[in-house]
C-alpha cells in the first residue's frame, strides 16, 4: 500500500500541445478527506490536468508535491504506486476480460508463470466489503450495465491501493438515482483516509458533492474556493466567463395537427431474438416539442433508427404528415420532410473527413440550385456554405476544414444548420447537448425553441431532466422499448420522471 496522502499539490502546471496552450500556470491543492470539484467547460483543461497527475501526460513546467515532497510521475504506474488512481470518463475496462482479470492487470504478480486470480479475488472481496460496493468478480465486462461497470472501476482503483481518487465525469452515463447513490458512496469513501478530485461540468452535482471547487477556463485557473459559499449560477458564470441564461419554452394554448405519429411499433434489437421496440407509440404535433426521457439503452437509438428508415420495423406504422413512411428508405423519408440530429454527431451526423462545406450540403446536393444535370455547382455551394457558417456562428478556420477537426459544439452547429434550414416538417434530435459545454448547449436549445416557434414537430430524446423540463411541451418516458407514460410539462417533477425512467410504473390510474 502506498503511504496516505495528507496533502497533494500541483504547482504552476503548464502543458502545451502543438499549437495549443492546454494548461497555463495552474495551481491546485488537495487535503486528506476532501472532495475537490474541478469544474470547467469542454476543452478548459480539466482532463489534461488530471492526466498530468496520473502520468499520462507530463507537464512542461511546474511540479507535483505529495506531503511536501516533489515527485516525478512519468507513467500511470508511478501514479498508482503513490496511491493516485483515476476513473476515466470512458471506462478503462477490457470488455472481453472478467472483472477479476481486469483488476489483476494492474496488480503485481508474484510469478510470471501463473496468474494468481485467487489473491486478486481476496483483495477485491476485502475492498468490496469495506466500501460496500458489490461486484460480480467472474462476470465479463461486456455483460455488465454501465452502472455496474462504474462500480468495477471504483473497486479496481481502490483495490490497487489508491487514496486519492480522480473521477472524470463519473455520472455521464448514470440515471439520476444512480448518480445519487454514487454521491452517497463517495461521501462514505472520503471518511476512510481517501480524498477525491471530481471532474464535472454539471453544477448541481458539484454543489451536492464537493467541499471545494476549482474552476478552469481556457487552461487557466479562474476560481478556487469553498463550494458552499457560491451559488450554482455564480459558478456557471465563472465557468463560462459570462452570464448564462437557460432558454425555456413559453406555454402555448394551441398546437397544430399531428405531424409525426409512431403507432405501436415493434423492431428487432442488435442482438438476435430481442425486441428493442415493443409496441411503442408516440405523437408529435406541429409547433410542439415532445421529449423522450429514459436511460439510454432502452430503445432510444432503435427508435431514432426506425423513424429515419435505418432500421426495419416488424409491426406498426410510422406516419409523417399523413403519409406512411414505415420502412421507406432514408432518402424517401428525408424527401418527405424529416430532419435528424443524430446521437453520434461526428460519425452519423457528418462524414468526419469531409469538409464543413461538403457536410453542409449533404442532403441537398442533388437538387437545384446546388447541382445542375450531373454536376455540382461550386459557386452556389460555396456561397450557401459561407452564409450558413455565418448564420449559425460555426467557429471554423474556413469552409474547407474537415468536420473531424471541429469541437463537438461546432459540429453540432453544422448539423443544425443543415437540418433546420431545410425546413423539415418534423425534427428528431437525439441527445443534442450531450458532451457540449454550457455556451454551446444554450445555442442548441435556442435553435430547437426557434424550430418549435416555426411550427416544426420536434421529438427530443434525452436523459437530462433539466433539458427536458426546460424545452418540452410534453414528456414521454421510455422504458424497455415502450412508452410508460406521457406527461404534460406542468405535471412533471424530476422525482417522478426519475422513478419512471427506472421502470417504476406511474402511481395514477
Amino acid at each position, binding site marked *: 500500500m502506498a503511504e496516505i496522502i495528507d496533502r497533494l499539490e500541483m504547482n504552476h502546471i503548464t502543458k502545451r500541445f502543438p499549437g495549443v496552450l492546454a494548461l497555463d500556470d495552474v495551481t491546485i491543492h488537495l487535503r486528506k478527506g476532501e472532495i475537490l470539484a474541478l469544474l470547467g467547460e469542454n476543452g478548459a483543461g480539466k482532463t489534461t490536468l488530471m492526466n498530468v497527475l496520473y502520468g499520462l501526460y507530463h507537464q512542461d513546467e511546474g511540479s507535483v508535491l505529495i506531503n511536501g515532497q516533489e515527485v516525478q510521475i512519468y507513467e500511470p504506474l508511478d501514479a*498508482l504506486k503513490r496511491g493516485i488512481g*483515476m476513473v476515466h470518463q470512458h471506462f478503462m475496462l477490457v470488455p*472481453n*476480460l472478467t472483472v477479476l*482479470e481486469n483488476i*489483476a*492487470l494492474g496488480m503485481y504478480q508474484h510469478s510470471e508463470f501463473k496468474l494468481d486470480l485467487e489473491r486478486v479475488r481476496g483483495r477485491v472481496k476485502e475492498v468490496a466489503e469495506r466500501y460496500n460496493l458489490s461486484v460480480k468478480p467472474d462476470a465479463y465486462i461486456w455483460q455488465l450495465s454501465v452502472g455496474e461497470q462504474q462500480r468495477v472501476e471504483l473497486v479496481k482503483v481502490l483495490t490497487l491501493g489508491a487514496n486519492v481518487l480522480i473521477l472524470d465525469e463519473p455520472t455521464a452515463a448514470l440515471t439520476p438515482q444512480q448518480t445519487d447513490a454514487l454521491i452517497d458512496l463517495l461521501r462514505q469513501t472520503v471518511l476512510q483516509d481517501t480524498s477525491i478530485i471530481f471532474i464535472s461540468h454539471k453544477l448541481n452535482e458539484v454543489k451536492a458533492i464537493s467541499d471545494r471547487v476549482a474552476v478552469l477556463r481556457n487552461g487557466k485557473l479562474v476560481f478556487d474556493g469553498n463550494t458552499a459559499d457560491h451559488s450554482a449560477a455564480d459558478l456557471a458564470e465563472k465557468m463560462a466567463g459570462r452570464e448564462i441564461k437557460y432558454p425555456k419554452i413559453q406555454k402555448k394554448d394551441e398546437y397544430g395537427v399531428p405531424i409525426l405519429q409512431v403507432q405501436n411499433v415493434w423492431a428487432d434489437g442488435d442482438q438476435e431474438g430481442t425486441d428493442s421496440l415493443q409496441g411503442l407509440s408516440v405523437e408529435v404535433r406541429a409547433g410542439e416539442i415532445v421529449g423522450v426521457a429514459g436511460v439510454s439503452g432502452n430503445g432510444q437509438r432503435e427508435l431514432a433508427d426506425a423513424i429515419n428508415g435505418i432500421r426495419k420495423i416488424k409491426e406498426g406504422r410510422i406516419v409523417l404528415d399523413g403519409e406512411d413512411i414505415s420502412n421507406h428508405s432514408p432518402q424517401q423519408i428525408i424527401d418527405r420532410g424529416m430532419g435528424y440530429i443524430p446521437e453520434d454527431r461526428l460519425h452519423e451526423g457528418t462524414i468526419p473527413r469531409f469538409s464543413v462545406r461538403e457536410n453542409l450540403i449533404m442532403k441537398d446536393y442533388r437538387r437545384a440550385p446546388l447541382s445542375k444535370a450531373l454536376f455540382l455547382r461550386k459557386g452556389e455551394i460555396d456561397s450557401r456554405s459561407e452564409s450558413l457558417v455565418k448564420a449559425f456562428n460555426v467557429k471554423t478556420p474556413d469552409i474547407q476544414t474537415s468536420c473531424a477537426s471541429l469541437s463537438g459544439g461546432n459540429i453540432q452547429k453544422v448539423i443544425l444548420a443543415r437540418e433546420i434550414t431545410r425546413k423539415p416538417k418534423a425534427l428528431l434530435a437525439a441527445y443534442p447537448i450531450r458532451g457540449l459545454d454550457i455556451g454551446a448547449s444554450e445555442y442548441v436549445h435556442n435553435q430547437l425553441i426557434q424550430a418549435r416557434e416555426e411550427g416544426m414537430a420536434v421529438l427530443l430524446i434525452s436523459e437530462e431532466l433539466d433539458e427536458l423540463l426546460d424545452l418540452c411541451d410534453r414528456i414521454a418516458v421510455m422504458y424497455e422499448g415502450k412508452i410508460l407514460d406521457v406527461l404534460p410539462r406542468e405535471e412533471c417533477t424530476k422525482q417522478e420522471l426519475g422513478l419512471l425512467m427506472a421502470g417504476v410504473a406511474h402511481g395514477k390510474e
Partner: protein
Amino acid sequence: MILEVVIGVIVGGIPLSASLLFASLGEMFGQRSGVFNLGTEGIMMLSAFVGFYLVYLFGSPVLGIVAAMAVGGLMGLLMALVSVTFKAEQGISGIGLYMFGWGVSGTLFRVYVGGVTNIDGIGRIAVPVLKDIPVLGPILFNQNPLVYLAFLLVPVSSYVLFKTPWGLKVRAVGTTPQAADTLGVNVQRIRYQCVTLGGVMSGLAGAYLSIGQAQMFADNLTAGRGFIAVALVYFGRWKPSGVMWGALLFSMAHALQRSIQVYGIEFPYEIAVATPYLMVILVLALTYKERNVGPLALGKPYNREFRG
C-alpha cells in the same frame, strides 16, 4: 476403399497441418496483441530457404531450424518496428514484408542453388509404446518430431494466453490498449514481443516445410500457407484449439484432394486443388461470429497522446 481413403486423408493430413499450426499459433499471439501480420507468407518463404540452405551447406537440420527461426524473428521485429513504432497501416506493411521475403528467397535460391536439390532433412520418429496401439498407433504416432512439437504447442499456447500474467496483458493490449496503459502495462513492448514471437513461429513453420516436409526448396514452396495461417486465426476465433481444428480441417481437405488424384477418381484436377482454399473462405463466411471474443483493437496502432 472408403476406409483406405479416410485413413489416407488422416495420415496425409496430420503432417501437412504442422506448418500451418506453427505459423497460425504465432500469428494468433500477434493478433491477440492487436497486430495482424500479412507478411507471414514471406517470413515462411525466406526462413524455409535459409533453413534449407544451411542444411544443404552443412548438413545440420538443427542449425537450419535455429537459423530459420532467427530469420523469422528478425522479420517479425521489422514488422513490429514498422507497425508498432512507426504506426504504419498494418495491411500494407504486411504485404510489403511478404513481397520482400518472397523476392529475396527466390533470388537467393537461383543465385546460390539454382535448381531443385534434395537434402537430408528430418525424418519420422515413431513414439515407443504408443506406436503399437492398434490402428491409431501407426496413424498418429509415427511422425516428424516437429509435428509432435506443433501439437504440443497448442495446449502450451492456451496456458500462456489464459493462465499467465503475460497472456493477460496480451489479451488486454489487443482489446483496449488505453485500459492496459492506465494500469501500467507497456503496450508497445507487449506488441513487439508478440509480433516477434509470431515471426519466430513462422520461421519454424518455414523450416518445417523445407527441412521436414519437402526436404527440398522450390519457388512457391509455401503455396499460400502463410495467408491461410492468417485466415485460420479468425477461423479459430483467436483460440489455440480453434486454430488447431482449422489447421486440421484445411490439411485434411488438402490430403483428400491428393487422394482423389492418387486413386484416379474422375474429378477435375483444377477444382480439386482449389477445394481446400475455397473451403476456408466458405467456412469463414458462414460460421457464426461469436461477439466479444476477438481483439477489438486489431489493426489499430496505439498512441497515448492522441486521444482527447
